[in-house]
Protein backbone atom coordinates (compact mmCIF):
# COMPACT_ATOMS: atom_id res chain seq x y z
CA UNK A 1 0.00 0.00 0.00
CA UNK A 2 2.72 2.43 1.04
CA UNK A 3 4.84 1.58 -1.98
CA UNK A 4 1.80 2.08 -4.22
CA UNK A 5 1.34 5.56 -2.78
CA UNK A 6 5.02 6.19 -3.44
CA UNK A 7 4.70 5.06 -7.05
CA UNK A 8 1.59 7.17 -7.59
CA UNK A 9 3.31 10.18 -6.04
CA UNK A 10 6.30 9.65 -8.30
CA UNK A 11 4.10 9.47 -11.42
CA UNK A 12 2.00 12.41 -10.23
CA UNK A 13 5.10 14.57 -9.82
CA UNK A 14 6.18 13.68 -13.32
CA UNK A 15 2.91 14.86 -14.93
CA UNK A 16 3.71 17.87 -17.12
CA UNK A 17 1.33 20.36 -15.45
CA UNK A 18 2.55 19.38 -11.97
CA UNK A 19 6.14 19.57 -13.14
CA UNK A 20 5.62 22.95 -14.77
CA UNK A 21 4.09 24.33 -11.61
CA UNK A 22 6.72 22.97 -9.25
CA UNK A 23 9.52 24.15 -11.50
CA UNK A 24 8.06 27.61 -12.07
CA UNK A 25 9.73 28.87 -8.92
CA UNK A 26 13.22 28.10 -7.78
CA UNK A 27 12.25 27.39 -4.19
CA UNK A 28 9.45 25.02 -5.22
CA UNK A 29 11.83 23.24 -7.55
CA UNK A 30 14.52 22.60 -4.98
CA UNK A 31 12.65 22.52 -1.70
CA UNK A 32 9.37 21.00 -2.77
CA UNK A 33 9.72 18.92 -5.90
CA UNK A 34 13.09 17.36 -5.16
CA UNK A 35 12.29 16.33 -1.56
CA UNK A 36 8.96 14.92 -2.76
CA UNK A 37 10.73 12.78 -5.36
CA UNK A 38 13.02 11.50 -2.62
CA UNK A 39 9.96 10.83 -0.47
CA UNK A 40 8.36 8.93 -3.37
CA UNK A 41 11.47 6.76 -3.63
CA UNK A 42 11.52 6.33 0.14
CA UNK A 43 7.91 5.11 0.10
CA UNK A 44 8.54 2.80 -2.87
CA UNK A 45 11.62 1.29 -1.23
CA UNK A 46 10.20 -1.62 0.81
CA UNK A 47 9.45 -4.09 -2.05
CA UNK A 48 12.70 -3.14 -3.79
CA UNK A 49 14.77 -3.79 -0.69
CA UNK A 50 12.91 -7.08 -0.15
CA UNK A 51 13.39 -8.17 -3.75
CA UNK A 52 17.13 -7.50 -3.63
CA UNK A 53 17.54 -8.27 0.05
CA UNK A 54 20.73 -10.27 -0.38
CA UNK A 55 22.29 -7.42 -2.33
CA UNK A 56 21.38 -4.83 0.28
CA UNK A 57 22.46 -7.05 3.17
CA UNK A 58 25.74 -7.83 1.55
CA UNK A 59 26.73 -4.41 0.28
CA UNK A 60 24.93 -2.10 2.64
CA UNK A 61 25.28 -4.11 5.80
CA UNK A 62 25.95 -1.23 8.15
CA UNK A 63 24.18 1.39 6.05
CA UNK A 64 27.23 3.50 5.38
CA UNK A 65 27.54 3.12 1.59
CA UNK A 66 23.83 3.91 1.19
CA UNK A 67 23.96 7.06 3.28
CA UNK A 68 27.12 8.26 1.51
CA UNK A 69 25.28 7.76 -1.79
CA UNK A 70 22.30 9.69 -0.42
CA UNK A 71 24.42 12.64 0.69
CA UNK A 72 26.36 12.81 -2.58
CA UNK A 73 23.24 12.67 -4.75
CA UNK A 74 21.69 15.38 -2.60
CA UNK A 75 24.80 17.50 -3.05
CA UNK A 76 24.73 17.03 -6.79
CA UNK A 77 21.25 18.51 -7.12
CA UNK A 78 22.27 21.53 -5.06
CA UNK A 79 24.66 22.62 -7.82
CA UNK A 80 22.97 25.56 -9.59
CA UNK A 81 23.82 24.16 -13.01
CA UNK A 82 21.87 20.94 -12.48
CA UNK A 83 18.60 22.79 -11.96
CA UNK A 84 19.00 24.73 -15.18
CA UNK A 85 19.90 21.57 -17.06
CA UNK A 86 16.84 19.76 -15.73
CA UNK A 87 14.68 22.57 -17.11
CA UNK A 88 16.31 22.59 -20.51
CA UNK A 89 16.78 18.90 -21.20
CA UNK A 90 14.21 16.12 -20.91
CA UNK A 91 16.98 13.57 -20.42
CA UNK A 92 18.36 15.40 -17.41
CA UNK A 93 14.82 15.77 -16.07
CA UNK A 94 14.29 12.02 -16.38
CA UNK A 95 17.68 11.43 -14.81
CA UNK A 96 16.66 13.66 -11.92
CA UNK A 97 13.48 11.71 -11.23
CA UNK A 98 15.21 8.31 -11.35
CA UNK A 99 18.28 9.52 -9.53
CA UNK A 100 16.53 11.19 -6.59
CA UNK A 101 13.97 8.42 -6.12
CA UNK A 102 16.20 5.37 -6.48
CA UNK A 103 19.68 6.61 -5.60
CA UNK A 104 18.61 8.89 -2.75
CA UNK A 105 15.16 7.79 -1.51
CA UNK A 106 15.71 4.03 -1.60
CA UNK A 107 19.19 3.97 -0.03
CA UNK A 108 18.02 6.39 2.67
CA UNK A 109 15.28 3.92 3.62
CA UNK A 110 17.66 1.00 3.70
CA UNK A 111 20.49 2.78 5.44
CA UNK A 112 19.07 5.07 8.08
CA UNK A 113 17.71 2.43 10.49
CA UNK A 114 21.01 0.58 10.30
CA UNK A 115 23.12 3.55 11.37
CA UNK A 116 24.28 4.13 14.91
CA UNK A 117 23.12 7.28 16.67
CA UNK A 118 26.57 8.83 16.40
CA UNK A 119 26.65 8.32 12.65
CA UNK A 120 23.12 9.63 12.27
CA UNK A 121 24.13 12.78 14.09
CA UNK A 122 27.32 13.09 12.05
CA UNK A 123 25.25 12.83 8.86
CA UNK A 124 22.96 15.57 10.14
CA UNK A 125 26.02 17.67 10.90
CA UNK A 126 27.30 17.14 7.35
CA UNK A 127 23.88 18.08 5.97
CA UNK A 128 23.95 21.18 8.18
CA UNK A 129 27.29 22.21 6.72
CA UNK A 130 25.99 21.54 3.21
CA UNK A 131 22.76 23.52 3.51
CA UNK A 132 24.36 26.49 5.24
CA UNK A 133 27.21 26.74 2.75
CA UNK A 134 24.93 26.34 -0.28
CA UNK A 135 22.46 28.74 1.33
CA UNK A 136 25.17 31.36 1.86
CA UNK A 137 26.32 30.88 -1.71
CA UNK A 138 22.80 31.61 -3.00
CA UNK A 139 22.42 34.61 -0.71
CA UNK A 140 25.82 36.25 -1.05
CA UNK A 141 26.59 35.55 -4.68
CA UNK A 142 26.65 38.81 -6.68
CA UNK A 143 25.72 37.10 -9.86
CA UNK A 144 22.68 35.23 -10.98
CA UNK A 145 23.48 31.55 -10.53
CA UNK A 146 20.60 30.04 -12.46
CA UNK A 147 19.83 31.44 -15.87
CA UNK A 148 16.20 30.37 -15.70
CA UNK A 149 15.35 31.96 -12.38
CA UNK A 150 15.27 35.54 -11.17
CA UNK A 151 17.94 36.65 -8.74
CA UNK A 152 15.35 37.42 -6.09
CA UNK A 153 14.23 33.79 -6.19
CA UNK A 154 17.81 32.78 -5.61
CA UNK A 155 17.81 34.90 -2.47
CA UNK A 156 14.60 33.27 -1.25
CA UNK A 157 16.06 29.84 -1.82
CA UNK A 158 19.22 30.80 0.04
CA UNK A 159 17.23 31.83 3.11
CA UNK A 160 15.19 28.69 2.89
CA UNK A 161 18.44 26.72 3.02
CA UNK A 162 19.55 28.66 6.09
CA UNK A 163 16.23 28.01 7.82
CA UNK A 164 16.77 24.32 7.11
CA UNK A 165 20.21 24.66 8.67
CA UNK A 166 18.63 26.31 11.70
CA UNK A 167 16.19 23.44 12.08
CA UNK A 168 19.02 20.91 11.98
CA UNK A 169 21.02 22.88 14.56
CA UNK A 170 17.97 23.05 16.77
CA UNK A 171 17.54 19.30 16.65
CA UNK A 172 21.21 18.54 17.19
CA UNK A 173 21.43 21.01 20.07
CA UNK A 174 18.41 19.37 21.62
CA UNK A 175 19.77 15.82 21.44
CA UNK A 176 23.16 16.91 22.72
CA UNK A 177 21.94 19.08 25.56
CA UNK A 178 19.18 16.80 26.74
CA UNK A 179 19.25 13.07 26.63
CA UNK A 180 15.98 12.14 24.89
CA UNK A 181 16.20 8.56 26.16
CA UNK A 182 15.81 9.81 29.68
CA UNK A 183 12.25 10.88 28.93
CA UNK A 184 11.13 7.67 27.30
Amino acid at each position, binding site marked *: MQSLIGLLLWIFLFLPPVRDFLESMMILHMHMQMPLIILAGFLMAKPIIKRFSSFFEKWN*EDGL*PGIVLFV*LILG*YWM*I*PRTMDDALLSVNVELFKFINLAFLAGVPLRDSFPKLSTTIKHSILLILFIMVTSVGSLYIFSDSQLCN*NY*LQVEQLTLGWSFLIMGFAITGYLAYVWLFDPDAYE
Partner: protein
Amino acid sequence: MLKRKTIIAIAIVLVVNVGIYFVGTDGFTAFTAEEARTQELTDHQPLFPEVTLEDSQARTYPFSEFEGQYVFMTFFYSACSDVCIELEENMAEVFEATENLHDQVQFLSISFDPERDKPEVLDNYRQYFGSDGEDWRMARINNQDELQSLLDAFEVIVIPDGNDHYTHNSAFYLVNPDGRLIDVMDFRDIDGAVDRLENVLESEGG
Protein backbone atom coordinates in the same frame (compact mmCIF):
# COMPACT_ATOMS: atom_id res chain seq x y z
CA MET B 1 36.51 -1.39 11.95
CA LEU B 2 34.76 -1.19 8.63
CA LYS B 3 34.16 -4.40 6.77
CA ARG B 4 35.91 -4.96 3.48
CA LYS B 5 32.61 -5.09 1.59
CA THR B 6 31.56 -1.77 3.08
CA ILE B 7 34.78 -0.15 2.00
CA ILE B 8 34.40 -1.53 -1.52
CA ALA B 9 30.78 -0.38 -1.67
CA ILE B 10 31.70 3.12 -0.49
CA ALA B 11 34.51 3.22 -3.03
CA ILE B 12 32.09 2.27 -5.82
CA VAL B 13 29.61 4.91 -4.63
CA LEU B 14 32.36 7.52 -4.64
CA VAL B 15 33.61 6.58 -8.11
CA VAL B 16 30.11 6.58 -9.59
CA ASN B 17 29.39 9.96 -8.04
CA VAL B 18 32.63 11.47 -9.22
CA GLY B 19 31.48 10.29 -12.66
CA ILE B 20 28.06 11.92 -12.29
CA TYR B 21 29.55 15.18 -11.00
CA PHE B 22 32.16 15.07 -13.77
CA VAL B 23 29.60 14.72 -16.55
CA GLY B 24 27.17 17.18 -14.94
CA THR B 25 29.75 19.94 -14.64
CA ASP B 26 31.67 19.35 -17.89
CA GLY B 27 34.64 17.94 -16.02
CA PHE B 28 34.39 20.17 -12.91
CA THR B 29 34.65 23.33 -15.02
CA ALA B 30 31.07 24.62 -15.17
CA PHE B 31 29.03 24.68 -11.98
CA THR B 32 26.48 27.16 -13.25
CA ALA B 33 24.63 27.15 -16.55
CA GLU B 34 26.22 30.53 -17.25
CA GLU B 35 29.72 29.04 -17.12
CA ALA B 36 28.57 26.21 -19.36
CA ARG B 37 27.04 28.71 -21.77
CA THR B 38 30.23 30.76 -21.96
CA GLN B 39 32.34 27.69 -22.67
CA GLU B 40 29.93 26.39 -25.24
CA LEU B 41 29.82 29.76 -27.01
CA THR B 42 33.57 30.19 -27.23
CA ASP B 43 33.89 26.61 -28.48
CA HIS B 44 31.33 27.02 -31.25
CA GLN B 45 31.82 30.66 -32.14
CA PRO B 46 28.32 31.38 -33.44
CA LEU B 47 27.90 33.82 -36.31
CA PHE B 48 26.24 37.16 -35.64
CA PRO B 49 22.87 36.86 -37.41
CA GLU B 50 21.78 39.38 -40.04
CA VAL B 51 19.95 42.07 -38.12
CA THR B 52 19.15 45.70 -38.74
CA LEU B 53 20.30 48.13 -36.09
CA GLU B 54 18.94 51.55 -35.37
CA ASP B 55 21.37 53.66 -33.39
CA SER B 56 21.12 56.73 -31.18
CA GLN B 57 21.29 59.03 -34.21
CA ALA B 58 18.40 57.09 -35.80
CA ARG B 59 20.69 55.72 -38.51
CA THR B 60 19.73 52.22 -39.64
CA TYR B 61 22.19 49.75 -41.05
CA PRO B 62 22.81 46.00 -41.02
CA PHE B 63 25.31 44.52 -38.61
CA SER B 64 27.57 43.74 -41.57
CA GLU B 65 28.40 47.47 -41.52
CA PHE B 66 31.06 46.51 -38.97
CA GLU B 67 32.62 43.80 -41.11
CA GLY B 68 36.39 43.83 -40.95
CA GLN B 69 36.40 45.24 -37.44
CA TYR B 70 36.29 43.68 -34.05
CA VAL B 71 33.09 44.48 -32.21
CA PHE B 72 33.07 44.76 -28.43
CA MET B 73 29.47 44.36 -27.30
CA THR B 74 27.07 44.40 -24.39
CA PHE B 75 23.34 43.84 -24.10
CA PHE B 76 21.30 46.17 -21.90
CA TYR B 77 18.08 48.13 -21.52
CA SER B 78 18.11 51.73 -20.42
CA ALA B 79 15.34 51.49 -17.82
CA CYS B 80 17.45 48.99 -15.92
CA SER B 81 18.35 50.31 -12.51
CA ASP B 82 21.11 48.02 -11.32
CA VAL B 83 23.35 45.70 -13.27
CA CYS B 84 23.14 47.46 -16.66
CA ILE B 85 24.51 50.63 -15.14
CA GLU B 86 27.49 48.76 -13.77
CA LEU B 87 27.82 46.93 -17.07
CA GLU B 88 27.87 50.13 -19.14
CA GLU B 89 30.11 51.93 -16.64
CA ASN B 90 32.62 49.12 -16.89
CA MET B 91 32.30 49.18 -20.66
CA ALA B 92 33.07 52.89 -20.51
CA GLU B 93 36.27 52.13 -18.60
CA VAL B 94 37.31 49.59 -21.23
CA PHE B 95 36.42 52.15 -23.91
CA GLU B 96 38.62 54.80 -22.31
CA ALA B 97 41.51 52.43 -21.66
CA THR B 98 41.68 51.31 -25.28
CA GLU B 99 41.55 54.69 -26.99
CA ASN B 100 44.47 53.80 -29.27
CA LEU B 101 42.49 50.82 -30.63
CA HIS B 102 39.29 52.59 -31.56
CA ASP B 103 39.93 52.44 -35.28
CA GLN B 104 40.07 48.66 -35.07
CA VAL B 105 37.43 47.96 -32.47
CA GLN B 106 33.83 49.06 -32.66
CA PHE B 107 32.06 49.40 -29.31
CA LEU B 108 28.39 48.56 -29.45
CA SER B 109 25.67 48.38 -26.79
CA ILE B 110 22.52 46.67 -27.96
CA SER B 111 19.23 47.26 -26.19
CA PHE B 112 16.84 44.32 -25.95
CA ASP B 113 13.99 46.68 -25.05
CA PRO B 114 13.32 48.37 -28.44
CA GLU B 115 9.91 49.61 -27.38
CA ARG B 116 11.25 51.99 -24.76
CA ASP B 117 14.77 52.53 -26.07
CA LYS B 118 13.99 54.86 -28.97
CA PRO B 119 16.88 56.70 -30.62
CA GLU B 120 16.33 59.82 -28.50
CA VAL B 121 16.31 57.74 -25.31
CA LEU B 122 19.51 56.02 -26.40
CA ASP B 123 21.08 59.35 -27.30
CA ASN B 124 20.35 60.62 -23.83
CA TYR B 125 21.51 57.42 -22.17
CA ARG B 126 24.81 57.18 -24.04
CA GLN B 127 25.93 60.57 -22.71
CA TYR B 128 25.94 59.31 -19.13
CA PHE B 129 28.67 56.87 -20.04
CA GLY B 130 30.81 58.96 -22.35
CA SER B 131 29.81 57.11 -25.47
CA ASP B 132 30.49 59.28 -28.51
CA GLY B 133 27.83 57.68 -30.68
CA GLU B 134 30.46 56.73 -33.27
CA ASP B 135 33.29 54.61 -31.93
CA TRP B 136 30.87 53.47 -29.27
CA ARG B 137 27.30 53.24 -30.47
CA MET B 138 24.12 52.35 -28.71
CA ALA B 139 21.45 50.76 -30.82
CA ARG B 140 18.21 48.86 -30.77
CA ILE B 141 16.93 46.12 -33.03
CA ASN B 142 13.39 46.92 -34.03
CA ASN B 143 12.43 43.64 -35.59
CA GLN B 144 11.42 41.32 -32.77
CA ASP B 145 12.35 38.17 -34.72
CA GLU B 146 15.78 39.53 -35.55
CA LEU B 147 16.34 40.53 -31.95
CA GLN B 148 15.31 37.09 -30.77
CA SER B 149 17.56 35.38 -33.31
CA LEU B 150 20.52 37.35 -31.96
CA LEU B 151 19.65 36.66 -28.32
CA ASP B 152 19.27 32.97 -29.18
CA ALA B 153 22.50 32.78 -31.16
CA PHE B 154 24.49 34.37 -28.32
CA GLU B 155 22.38 32.64 -25.68
CA VAL B 156 21.52 35.86 -23.96
CA ILE B 157 18.73 35.05 -21.55
CA VAL B 158 16.26 37.80 -20.83
CA ILE B 159 13.36 37.11 -18.47
CA PRO B 160 10.71 39.83 -18.09
CA ASP B 161 9.80 40.06 -14.40
CA GLY B 162 6.30 41.37 -15.03
CA ASN B 163 7.05 44.89 -13.77
CA ASP B 164 8.53 46.27 -16.99
CA HIS B 165 11.94 45.06 -15.88
CA TYR B 166 14.11 42.17 -16.87
CA THR B 167 16.46 39.72 -15.28
CA HIS B 168 19.25 38.96 -17.70
CA ASN B 169 22.77 37.65 -17.82
CA SER B 170 25.48 40.22 -18.42
CA ALA B 171 28.86 39.94 -20.07
CA PHE B 172 31.25 41.54 -22.53
CA TYR B 173 31.00 39.92 -25.95
CA LEU B 174 33.75 40.06 -28.54
CA VAL B 175 32.91 39.50 -32.20
CA ASN B 176 35.72 39.07 -34.71
CA PRO B 177 35.96 40.77 -38.15
CA ASP B 178 34.17 37.79 -39.76
CA GLY B 179 31.17 38.31 -37.50
CA ARG B 180 31.88 35.35 -35.25
CA LEU B 181 31.58 35.52 -31.49
CA ILE B 182 35.02 34.62 -30.17
CA ASP B 183 34.83 35.48 -26.50
CA VAL B 184 32.44 36.08 -23.64
CA MET B 185 34.11 37.93 -20.80
CA ASP B 186 33.35 38.71 -17.19
CA PHE B 187 32.08 42.28 -17.24
CA ARG B 188 33.47 42.92 -13.74
CA ASP B 189 37.02 42.22 -14.88
CA ILE B 190 37.85 45.45 -16.71
CA ASP B 191 41.61 44.89 -16.86
CA GLY B 192 41.07 41.37 -18.16
CA ALA B 193 38.88 42.69 -20.97
CA VAL B 194 41.40 45.40 -21.89
CA ASP B 195 44.21 42.83 -21.95
CA ARG B 196 42.14 40.51 -24.07
CA LEU B 197 41.42 43.23 -26.62
CA GLU B 198 45.07 44.24 -26.81
CA ASN B 199 46.20 40.65 -27.21
CA VAL B 200 43.69 39.87 -29.94
CA LEU B 201 44.74 42.91 -31.94
CA GLU B 202 48.42 42.27 -31.35
CA SER B 203 48.17 38.73 -32.69
CA GLU B 204 46.43 40.19 -35.73
CA GLY B 205 49.59 42.12 -36.41
CA GLY B 206 47.63 45.34 -36.02
